[in-house]
């Protein structure tokens, strides 16, 4: 593999793209499959493009360079009592802002107020012709031009390399409270997820961990209110309130994907609560598969101990009509149903006419 280039400014990033015939960005390496393409392709590390460019807490917005570790951003926001409410993962793991957007992986808090696509406001990016472009805006509300910032969410770096991104932020909730509700099997867990999501109790996160012990609920808001709401929830679905240390450990472990072996392949699958039982059934036939269902039953993370199980997972997801993306491990980037209308190739050509970035299926 060629030694990576490390541009130090957005302008140098654009120069780097123009200087290479084929190029792929590298961030913190928490989702290595995104950049696992032909070794002959020139790597461009975003590590030199790091730091907050603008942060004004009164505006509820920040702009940071794409190579900025997300944990640095989260820490800067926390100092001013703010947060990215979708709980970006792999903070300790070293994920970067650009990788967060390209991978499109949000955490548990995505349930209440939305995910990366709902908080991204603007991007500065280099297209396949090496042009440095700025689209979207820096204010919390903007309807001018096509929404490229949203489009880049989950685009795996196939349409452009981010140099910088602007996000909306929210105030950090005054406190949180974590409950565990036991559930026998995925159908029962799904029933709890949908039942709780339909209440006016405003759960902040609803997760079904891979340990099979039921549903974990997070409430967020003013402390005294949470105690009362927790009482109402437990009145309907019996369970327990986790102590603060146990709760903190649970959410940190989840954020870092501590439940999945570091060496295991990891896939993200879009699902529905109503498909949880079918997915669990299918995964019983995939050797060594472990599954965490997050964001209220709308996303599943599947860890696979053996590399050859990826092919089986691909087939099983296809049979279920589900789509996934491989984040770690060697196998196809896209799993299961691949929805690929002709327009995808047309937009790829519009943004990357010479095919400098990896192809849609690389």
């Amino acid at each position, binding site marked *: 593999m060629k030694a990576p280039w490390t541009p130090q400014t957005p302008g140098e990033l654009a120069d780097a793209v123009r200087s290479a015939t084929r190029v792929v960005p590298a961030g913190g390496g928490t989702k290595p499959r995104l950049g696992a393409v032909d070794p002959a392709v020139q790597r461009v590390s975003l590590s030199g493009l790091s730091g907050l460019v603008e942060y004004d807490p009164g505006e509820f917005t920040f702009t940071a360079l794409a190579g900025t570790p997300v944990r640095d951003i989260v820490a800067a926001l926390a100092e001013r009592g703010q947060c990215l409410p979708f709980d970006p993962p792999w903070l300790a793991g070293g994920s970067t802002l650009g990788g967060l957007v390209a991978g499109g992986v949000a955490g548990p808090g995505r349930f209440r107020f939305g995910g990366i696509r709902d908080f991204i406001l603007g991007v500065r990016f280099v297209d396949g012709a090496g042009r440095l472009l*700025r689209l979207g805006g820096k204010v919390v509300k903007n309807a*001018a*031009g*096509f929404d490229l910032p949203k489009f880049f969410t989950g685009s795996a770096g196939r349409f452009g390399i981010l140099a910088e991104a602007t996000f909306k932020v929210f105030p950090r909730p005054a406190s949180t409270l974590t409950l565990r509700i036991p559930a026998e099997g995925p159908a029962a867990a799904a029933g709890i997820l949908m039942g709780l999501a*339909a209440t006016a*109790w405003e759960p902040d996160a609803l997760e079904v961990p891979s340990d099979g012990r039921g549903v974990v609920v997070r409430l967020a808001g003013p402390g005294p209110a949470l105690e009362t709401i927790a009482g109402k929830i437990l009145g309907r679905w019996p369970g327990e309130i986790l102590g603060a240390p146990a709760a903190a450990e649970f959410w940190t472990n989840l954020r870092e994907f501590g439940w999945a072996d570091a060496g295991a392949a990891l896939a993200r699958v879009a699902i529905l609560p109503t498909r949880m039982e079918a997915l669990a059934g299918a995964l019983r036939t995939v050797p060594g598969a472990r599954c965490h269902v997050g964001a209220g039953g709308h996303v599943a993370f599947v860890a696979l101990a053996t590399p050859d199980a990826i092919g089986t997972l691909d087939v099983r997801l296809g049979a279920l009509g589900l789509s996934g993306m491989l984040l770690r491990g060697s196998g196809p980037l896209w799993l299961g149903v691949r929805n690929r209308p002709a327009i995808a190739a047309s937009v790829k050509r*519009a943004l990357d006419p010479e095919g400098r970035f990896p192809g849609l299926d690389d």
Partner: protein
Amino acid sequence: MTDPIRRLAALLPAERLLLRPEQLAAYESDALTAYRASPLAVAIPETTDEVVSLVRWCRGERVPFVARGSGTSLSGGSLPVAGGLVIALNRLNRILRLDPALRIAVVEPGVVNLAVTQAAAPHGLHYAPDPSSQSICTIGGNVAFNSGGAHCLKYGMTANHVLGLKAVLATGEIVEWGGAGREFVGPDWCGLFTGNEGLFGIALEITLQLLPRAECFHTVLAGYRTLEQAGDAVSAIVASGLLPGAIEIMDALALEAATAAVHAEYPPGCEAVLIVELEGTREAVACERVALDAIVAASGPVEARPARDAEERLAIWKGRKSAFSAVGRLSPDFIVQDGVVPRRRLGEALRRIGELARAAGLRCANVFHAGDGNLHPLILYNGREAGALERAEELAGKILKLCVAMGGSITGEHGVGVEKREFLPDMFGPDEIACLERIRAAFDPLGIANPGKMFPAGGAPALQHHGLHPLERTGGISRE
């Protein structure tokens, strides 16, 4: 009948294809009433298959098309293309599926915004985006223009609530993106399509996320001697860590108009009124209202009035939502703008808008979404007075440029359309506009989908927004 028209006529029953000038007149403009263009024909499909065949006819015959819902666009988004086809989607107004367990509604593009919330209400759910025209505007139009409303800071705009789309592109290709789930895999195609201003194609089926209706509200109306004080109160609320569902401000001229129109009563002698609303669980609102009331009390209001019951809350919102059409009654003609500025510069923006208005010899009322910096200056003028329109246009342009210079946007929620297309280069450089053009060409290589909108065009007609829309006069719609 020419051959192309004969082929068009074969696609629909005669009563759903309007060709005679007197039939077409009603479709010549939208809520940006000064612009008029006469279409070749108006087609009124009743099924998505008919929409697809109409788009494919347009492609085959190289005829431009404009999709239209209720025609409430304030940026001229549904203005016909002269000699083009208008595809009126109002009869595609079925809610195809409402699933309370998954909290989604799948709707056709002609479904009215408020109808979604009405259908969801029995299940304790609602559809969050609430443009002021929500009782008449359609979801198809909301998707095309990424419509906003009073709750965008907390809940986002239309794009944040579109989970899935089936659409026919200008190429004739039918695409399906996303679905019932909150999460998706791959690029955010629904996000890219939402806000395309009709330049990509026509949405045929839209999957919307529904949210549980808040259990409790706490709404406060506070009057201030000066606009700056009201702006400072907004900053204090934002800095406190509260996340209100809505933060709105009305200035003195808007208050005067609302008082006359709906007999709203506001604290006397105020240059600005602030409306703040908390929403959430009963328990959370009970805690947070104490904090909010203290912040408001400390911000030096002439008077602060919390709504004591649902009726008082509705009265506060009635005054706010009627403000625009009420201001319109003060003057024979007006221009409405939609710029955004960073929130901390709201006071400065309003002061400079006031100075610009005085220099132009025009009155300008302000009603705006203070929480997200989205201004709606309303420039009053008398079109019969020589040169007044030109002065108003010039002022409107200066205000937009001011918003961009302050780091904001030319449009928060109305879209660029035909109205602000000459200002797109103030927002984006030539390389960015070329990039947007290339994306547009990917979706529409022939340039037949709503041409003349969003992108600057030489020799554009001057902006001439005259008075109230007929539907506003009758109270059918109002503006934000």
